């Protein structure tokens, strides 16, 4: 019993200690002119979905609920954001060549279609980011139409 208490205490100290290690916050606090939403006339329904389900990891501005500020969740998230942004950054859309815009749109559409995105580890804690079948269909249709028009 005594031993269990000691282990619990050590874990607690570690957990508290972890909280003091700083993490990088992904928040530039403004939306650049190169943002996807500023380039295209995105219908409100679609833009709401993109902002809720994609922008946390695919833009320079993450909305951080309280649990994402707690370690080790924050580290986990930080890595995903790093990787997500290098693949696709909606805030820097206009900096992509038209060739890359098209291939990105293709990937967005197919990732959503195949339920690869948003990541299940993300929707697990982020219920509102989960896409219903009808929402998926709406976004995919809009993205595909945009791609064909480019």
């Amino acid at each position, binding site marked *: 019993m005594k031993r269990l208490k000691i282990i619990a205490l050590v874990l607690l100290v570690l957990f508290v200690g972890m909280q003091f290690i700083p993490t990088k916050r992904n928040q530039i606090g403004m939306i650049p002119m190169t943002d996807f939403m500023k380039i295209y006339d995105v219908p409100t329904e679609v833009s709401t979905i993109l902002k809720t389900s994609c922008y946390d990891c695919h833009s320079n501005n993450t909305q951080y609920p309280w649990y994402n500020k707690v370690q080790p969740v924050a580290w986990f998230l930080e890595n995903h954001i790093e990787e997500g942004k290098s693949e696709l950054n909606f805030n820097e859309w206009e900096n992509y*060549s038209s*060739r*890359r815009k*098209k*291939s990105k749109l*293709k*990937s967005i559409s*197919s990732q959503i279609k*195949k339920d690869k995105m948003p990541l299940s580890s993300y929707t697990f804690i982020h219920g509102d980011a989960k896409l219903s079948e009808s929402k998926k269909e709406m976004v995919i249709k809009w993205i595909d139409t945009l791609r064909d028009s480019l």
Partner: protein
Amino acid sequence: MVADDKGAAAKGATALLAAFAKFDMSTLSGETHKEYMEILESAKEQSEHIVKRSIDHQRGHFEVLSADISDLITLLGTEKTLYQDFCPMANNNKGAYWLSEVENIKNPYFGAKMMKCGSVKKQIN
């Protein structure tokens, strides 16, 4: 990809990335250089995905890569005889092109499932 071999496809993409790195682009000027850079950026991105992902994912990126390489050949030319093939069923029935060194159809998008699906659209050289 014709052989449904994810590992071999990944190796091919790695070799392509190495070839891009070795290419001397100092001979290109102005507009040609600009276009080359745009194609290169995309082709590299597609290749990187082919290196690390599943065969399904690889094939999706191969569609884009094939278009990139076709544009690259249009831009810079080639001495090789190549065939531009088209499979109407790939890319969710929207169809997709690929380049081949042989005249016979060997479908990279479906592999053994539909080896012969497609036709030669254009012969280069």
